[in-house]
C-alpha cells in the first residue's frame, strides 16, 4: 500500500500525460462528461471539433487554476473555477463562430455547455488545485486528448454506420443501407454501451490471466 502511494506522488510528467489517454480515459473509464459525448458524436468531424474545444478549455483552465491555486480562498474555490471555465468557454464559442459558422450551428448550445462538463471541473478540483503548472498542463493535455479520442471513436462508428462515410467522405458502396438509428439519439446510447462493453470484456480477460 505504502509503495503505491509513493509511486503515485512521483509520477513523471509523461505518466500524467499517458494516464489520461488510457488508464484513466475520461470517456471509457471515468464515464465523465457524457452529455457532449452522446449529443455531438453523430459525425466524426463534430466529435473532433467538440473534443478539441473541450481540450482547449481544459488546458487553459487547468493552467490558470494551477497558477492561482495559492491565491483562491478555499471557501469560494468552486465558484472561482466555474468563472474561470466560463470565461474560456465564451472565448472558444466566439472563436468557433469566427472559424466556421456551419460547425457552430451543428454544435449549437453544446459549446456553451462545456461550462458544466464535469470533466473540466473535476480536473480543476482534483488535480490543478494541488499541482504545479507543468504537471497540470500535462494532465490537461492527456485528459483532453483522451476525451477527444473517446469522442472520435464514438463519432467514427456512428458516422460509418449511420451515413456510410468518414469525415464526410463516403467510403461504403452505394448500395449500403444506412442505419439511420445510429445518427439519432438512440444510436448514441447504443454505441457508447457497445464501446464500454468492449472495455469491460478487455478488463475481464486481463483479470482472468
Amino acid at each position, binding site marked *: 500500500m505504502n509503495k503505491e502511494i509513493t509511486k503515485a506522488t512521483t509520477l513523471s510528467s509523461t505518466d500524467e500525460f499517458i494516464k489520461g489517454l488510457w488508464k484513466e480515459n475520461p470517456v471509457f473509464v471515468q*464515464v465523465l462528461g*457524457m*452529455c457532449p459525448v*452522446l*449529443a455531438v458524436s453523430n459525425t466524426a468531424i463534430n466529435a473532433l471539433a467538440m473534443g478539441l474545444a473541450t481540450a482547449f478549455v481544459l488546458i487553459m483552465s487547468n493552467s490558470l487554476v494551477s497558477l492561482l491555486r495559492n491565491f483562491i480562498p478555499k471557501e469560494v474555490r468552486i*465558484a472561482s473555477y*466555474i*468563472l474561470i471555465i*466560463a*470565461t474560456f*468557454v*465564451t472565448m472558444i*464559442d*466566439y472563436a468557433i463562430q469566427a472559424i466556421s459558422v456551419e460547425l457552430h450551428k451543428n454544435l449549437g*448550445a453544446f459549446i*456553451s*455547455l462545456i*461550462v*458544466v*462538463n*464535469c470533466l473540466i*471541473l473535476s480536473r480543476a478540483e482534483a488535480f490543478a488545485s494541488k499541482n504545479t503548472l507543468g504537471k497540470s498542463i500535462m494532465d490537461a493535455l492527456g485528459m483532453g486528448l483522451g476525451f477527444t479520442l473517446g469522442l472520435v471513436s464514438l463519432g467514427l462508428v456512428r458516422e460509418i454506420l449511420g451515413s456510410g462515410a468518414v469525415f464526410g467522405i463516403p467510403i461504403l458502396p452505394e448500395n449500403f443501407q444506412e442505419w439511420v*438509428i445510429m445518427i*439519432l*439519439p*438512440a*444510436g*448514441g*446510447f*447504443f454505441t*457508447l*454501451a457497445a464501446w*464500454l*462493453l468492449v472495455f*469491460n*470484456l478487455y478488463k*475481464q480477460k486481463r483479470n482472468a490471466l
Partner: protein
Amino acid sequence: MNQESFSQIFINACLVNNFVLAYFLGICPFLGVSGKIDTAGKMGGAVTFVMLISSMCAYGIHAFLEAIDAPFLQLISYIVVIASTVQLVEMFVKKMSPALFQALGIFLPLITTNCAILGLALFQTNKGYDFFQSVTYAFGAGTGFTLALLLMAGLREQLDFAEVPKVIRGTVLTLVAAGILSLAFMGFSGLGSN
C-alpha cells in the same frame, strides 16, 4: 418573437424533444440517481423547481444584457445566477421545511452542475420566448426530465432481478435501456407541430 402556443411548447419540451432522451442533457443525474423510483421522483421535483426559477432569472438577465449591449457576458452571468439560485433555494428549503431538506439531501447542490438547467436557459434565449412562454418551457422540460427519470427507475428496479452476464451489468445495461427508452420516445415526433 416566437408565436408557439403554450400547449405546443409544453408538449415539445416534455415529450418530443425530451431533454434527457433527445438532447442528452442531464445525463449524469439520469444515470446516477435513477436506481430507485422514490429518489428519482424527488430529484425530478427538485430539478423542475430550480428550472422554473432559473428560467425566470435567465429571462431577466437576457433583457438586461440586451439593454447594456453585452451579450458576451451571457454565459458567465447565467452560470453564476444558477449557482446562487440553487444556494438560495437550498437555504430557503432548509429554513421552511427541514423534512423536505432532509429528503432532497445531496441532490440540491448537485443540480448546479446539471447541464439541463443551463441548457434550458440557453435554449429559451435562442428560441426568443417571452416570459410566460419561458416559464411554460421550463415546466415542460422539468416534467419531461422527471418522466424520463421515473421510467428509467422503474426499468432499473425490474432489471435488478434479471439474470444478465457480469460484463454487461452496470453502466452498459443502463445505457442500453436508455437507448431503448429513447427509441420509444421517438414515436412522439411530429406531435405538437402544426
